[in-house]
C-alpha cells in the first residue's frame, strides 16, 4: 500500500488523481450544501434554515464529512499549487504570441486564477459564517414546536447579505465557481480515466448545466434575495 501511494503521489498523474478526487468530492459537497441552503428561501423566519444548521453542526456523520471536506479543500489547494509550480518550470520562457482561444476553453486555461478567487471567497465565507458559528457570539432563537435554543445563523446570513459589497463578492465568486466547474467537473472524470464516447458527453452536460449554471445560480440567488428583501 505504501508503495502504491508513493508511486501515485510522486507522479504527475498521481497528483492529478488527488486533484480530481478532491475536486469531485467538493462537487458532491456543493450539491448537498446548496440543497440545504435552499431552506433560506423558506419564509418561516429562518426556522428551517437554523434547524438545518443545527443538524449540520451536530450530526457526528456530517461532522466527519465536514472534516474530510476541509482536508480535501486543503489537499486540493496544496496540489493546485504544486501543479502550478511544476508547470511553470516546464515552460520558463513563454511565447511572444499565444493564440490558444481556438484550442482550449477559457476556463481550462484559467483554473488557477478561478481557484484563487474561490479561495478568497472561501476565506471570507468561512470567516463570516463558520468562524462565527464556532467561536463567535451568536444570537440565539427558539421556535415553536422545538424546545431547543438554536444559534440564529439565519439572522447572521441576512445581516451579511444586506451589505452590497458582500453580495457582490458572492456573485462574482459564483461566476468563478461556475467557470471552475465548467472545466473542472468533466476534467475530473478524464483524469480518473473515464472517457467514453457515449458517456462523456453526458458528463460534460452535467458539468455545464448543473455545476456551471444551476448550482452557482442558486447560490448567487441567496444573497441577491436577501439584498432585495432589504431594499
Amino acid at each position: 500500500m505504501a508503495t502504491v501511494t508513493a508511486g501515485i503521489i510522486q507522479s504527475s498523474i498521481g497528483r492529478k488523481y488527488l486533484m480530481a478526487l478532491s475536486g469531485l468530492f467538493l462537487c458532491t459537497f456543493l450539491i448537498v450544501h446548496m440543497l440545504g441552503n435552499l431552506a433560506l428561501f423558506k419564509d418561516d423566519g429562518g426556522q428551517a434554515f437554523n434547524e438545518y444548521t443545527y443538524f449540520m453542526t451536530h450530526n457526528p456523520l456530517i461532522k466527519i464529512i465536514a472534516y474530510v471536506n476541509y482536508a480535501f479543500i486543503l489537499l486540493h489547494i496544496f496540489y493546485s499549487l504544486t501543479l502550478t509550480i511544476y508547470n511553470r518550470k516546464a515552460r520558463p520562457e513563454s511565447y511572444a504570441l499565444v493564440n490558444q482561444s481556438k484550442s482550449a476553453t477559457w476556463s481550462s486555461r484559467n483554473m488557477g486564477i478561478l481557484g484563487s478567487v474561490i479561495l478568497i471567497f472561501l476565506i471570507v465565507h468561512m470567516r463570516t459564517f463558520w468562524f462565527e458559528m464556532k467561536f463567535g457570539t451568536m444570537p440565539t432563537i427558539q421556535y415553536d414546536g422545538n424546545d431547543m435554543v438554536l444559534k440564529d445563523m439565519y439572522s447572521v446570513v441576512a445581516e451579511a447579505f444586506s451589505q452590497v459589497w458582500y453580495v457582490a463578492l458572492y456573485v462574482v465568486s459564483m461566476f468563478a465557481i461556475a467557470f471552475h466547474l465548467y472545466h473542472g467537473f468533466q476534467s475530473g472524470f478524464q483524469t480518473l480515466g473515464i472517457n467514453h464516447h457515449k458517456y462523456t458527453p453526458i458528463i460534460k452536460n452535467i458539468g455545464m448545466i448543473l455545476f456551471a449554471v444551476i448550482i452557482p445560480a442558486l447560490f448567487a440567488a441567496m444573497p441577491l434575495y436577501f439584498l432585495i428583501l432589504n431594499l
Partner: protein
Amino acid sequence: MKLTLKVWRQKNAENKGEFKTYQMDHVSEDMSFLEMFDVLNDDLVRKGEDTVAFDHDCREGICGMCSMYINGRPHGPLKGTTTCQLHMRHFKDGETITVEPWRATAFPIIKDLMVDRSAFDRIIQAGGYISINTGNAVDANSTPIPKLDADKAFDAASCIGCGACVATCKNASAMLFVSAKVSQLALLPQGQPERHQRVKKMVEIMDAEGFGNCTNTGACEVECPKGISLENIARMNRDFLVANVVD
C-alpha cells in the same frame, strides 16, 4: 503575396535569442510554409547573412521533424496539418507572421527554430515497445484482433512525435504523445504482458524529463496534426492507476 516575417533567431542553446523581421515580397500561394523559408534562406545567403535553421525532412507531414510555432499556434492555423504541409494560400496578403520555436524545458533550443526533442525518444526507450526478439514471432494470423481494436490502435499509433502537443499545452505536458504509445500497445493483445510495467516506466521518465502536468485543457488534441484523441490520455490515466494498484 507580400508578407512580413517575425522570426526567432538564437545562435545556440547558450545565447539569448531575439526576433528579427524579414520582408518577403514574392510569396506564391502554392508554396508551402517551409518553401517560403527556403526562399528566405536563399536571400539570406546571397546577402551574406546566416540562414534560419529549422528542422524538416520528409515535407509530407509524416516524419514529424518540422516544428514551427506560427502566429501563436504549433504548425500554424490549419487543423490537422504540419508546418511542412501548410500552404501559403492560408495566409493573407500583407500579413505579419510570427514564427517561434517550440518552447519547453524538455525541448531545449538548439538554434533558431530547431529544438531538441530527444526526450521523446527516451520515453519510448523506457517502455514504448513490446519485448519480442527477432525470429520469435508466431504466425501473424494466429491471434485475431477485432477490427475495431486494431483501428483504434492504428489511430493512436499514427502519432508522428512532432511535439506540437507539448508546444501548445500551457503546461508543456507530454501526455498526448505518451498516451498515444501506451494506448496503441494497451489496445493490442500483444501488448498485454508488459502493460502495467510499460505505463509506469514511461510515466516515470516523462516526469523526469521535465514535462508539465496535464490539466486537461484539450489544446493538444485540437492542435495535434494527426488528431490523436484525448481518449488515449484517459486510457493511460486508467492504466496507470490499475498498474500502481495491482503491481
